[in-house]
């Protein structure tokens, strides 16, 4: 069964393609946007900008530290640089440059980390960004966004571009089915979207795990458990109000992410929950391992990042809530 099928979601194309189109769109809308590439434009799909706006596209080669520095310099000239590469390469090679030249300088630069998570699959753990959100979390001024479907990708690329300040946007290679419809969806930095109502427990996810959460909610509903589902697309700032409300109204929370549990989004949700209204919680994410090369969907199963896994801990936390 394909992802999102249980929840009745319409399939889509790979998120990198959606990103590439969204980036081209903001380049058309805003002449101040420039794009910097670490020689991966055919993988990150910034190649559309390269072809359409060659003057505003710079391939800096396989040299991420310099890539970030040059981008920061362009921001210093009033441009809005989108600094793009694989999440793993960009963050792990150029963390110091992102820290000083972007975050500490608090400049108006946007960073795309593509191929986040494990679902790039067969290229293996060297290419996977399983620690990117934790690393970005270590930079106090950095806004962090994770789209969960094509509509949110498009909206968040625009929101990131319009936002004044440093933004990290995490993307993935795989297709994510349509969760939202184009016209009646809102994505505000600092807010979360409740995309399914329910009062028995809440599943809070980001990225691909939002689809998984919706599938899991359908499975749980068949058993008479009504799960609320929250799309936490804005990791920083995080919507404390929606999280606190979910804790109070549903009494149990599951967090799901395609990222290391250590330093992951779930730990921040837990902190907010502990401070506002402590309830039983469970966490779906990666344990302290590097995963392997394989088909993305086999990896999701092997490392317990599926709708079944979410449903399973949801039953646990629901039972814990009832005591």
């Amino acid at each position, binding site marked *: 069964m394909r992802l999102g099928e249980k929840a009745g979601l319409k399939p889509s194309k790979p998120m990198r393609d959606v990103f590439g189109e969204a980036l081209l769109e903001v380049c058309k809308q805003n002449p101040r946007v420039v794009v910097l590439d670490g020689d991966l434009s055919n993988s990150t799909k910034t190649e559309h900008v390269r072809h359409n706006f060659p003057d505003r596209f710079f391939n800096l080669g396989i040299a991420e530290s310099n890539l970030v520095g*040059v981008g920061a310099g362009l921001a*210093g000239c009033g441009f809005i640089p989108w600094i793009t590469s694989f999440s793993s390469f960009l963050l792990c090679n150029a963390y110091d440059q992102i820290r000083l030249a972007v975050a500490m*300088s608090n400049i108006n630069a946007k960073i795309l980390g593509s191929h986040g998570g494990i679902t790039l699959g067969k290229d293996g753990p060297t290419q996977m960004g399983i620690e990117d959100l934790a690393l970005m979390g270590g930079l106090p001024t950095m806004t962090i966004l994770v789209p969960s479907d094509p509509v949110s990708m498009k909206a968040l690329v625009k929101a990131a571009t319009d936002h004044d300040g440093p933004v990290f946007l995490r993307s993935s290679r795989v297709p994510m089915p349509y969760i939202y419809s184009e016209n009646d969806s809102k994505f505000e930095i600092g807010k979360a979207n409740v995309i399914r109502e329910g009062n028995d427990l809440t599943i809070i996810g980001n990225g691909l795990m939002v689809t998984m959460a919706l599938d899991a909610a359908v499975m749980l509903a068949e058993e008479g458990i009504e799960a609320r589902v929250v799309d936490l697309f804005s990791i920083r700032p995080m919507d404390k109000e929606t999280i606190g409300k979910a804790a109070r109204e549903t009494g149990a929370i599951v967090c799901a992410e395609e990222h290391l549990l250590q330093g992951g989004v779930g730990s921040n949700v837990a902190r907010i929950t502990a401070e506002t209204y402590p309830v039983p919680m469970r966490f779906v994410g990666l344990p302290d391992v590097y995963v392997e090369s394989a088909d993305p969907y086999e990896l999701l199963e092997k490392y317990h990042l599926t709708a079944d896994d979410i449903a399973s801990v949801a039953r646990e936390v629901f039972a814990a809530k009832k005591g």
Partner: protein
Amino acid sequence: MIDKMNTAIDINKLNEIAKELRLDILEMTTKAGSGHPSSSWSSVEILTALYFGGILNYRSDEPWWEERDRFIMSKGHAAPLLYAVLAHAGYYDREVLWRLRQINSPVQGHPIQGMMPGVEATTGSLGQGLSLGLGHILGARLNGLDYRVYVLLGDGECEAGQIWEAAMAAAHFKADHLTAILDYNKYQETGPISREMALEPLAEKWRSFGWHVEEVDGHDIQAILEKLQFIEQINGCPSLIIAHTIKGKGVSFVEADFTFHGRALNPEQAENAREELLCA
């Protein structure tokens, strides 16, 4: 405010400014009880030439003027020098200098972009400034502006890979409005560069990366000015000026002891240094 080339250059006056900057650096770091006076003193003539010798186009009352020439202090530990120069150039009142490294002060131990007027870049983790300079060059082209960008590099930071990434990219983009000045004082934190991590043949390395390279006595303001004026004529490639300097220049007992890196002078040493600088 300096209008490029309109000022008749008086070298004696520039040497007088250099002396004042050295005294400011001494007072700042001694009062703070920490900092990098020796690394700052080594670059004094270079910045004096740039800011007060009619090279840099800037408006101290309009620090972010779009057409300004850029100066990026890549060797961020020479922050005291940068702060003293900007005060001298009229960017802000010099009283703020005495708050270096004090709580609730904008005068940070290493430069933070925009925290002080005229501070273009956050530096202090070494190796980053040249990339930023290249970004400002690419921005100038897109904006249709003709300004130049000057980046002061430390010698030790040329051990960092990012410097060579930026060197390669600057040549690739034919960044002939980008000038790097390398303060070659031959010492890094733990000792002589030749002993810790050999950089030579330095000029050949840069030339092989596609740069035009000049060498100069980094304490001879006249000679520095001539090189800076000369490289403005170079087309099609970025330029590097290797400035041979003395770490701690101006204070004999600091010149003689590289362990002064990252160490302020105590009040007694400062008194001796002050006398020496005033008599120079």
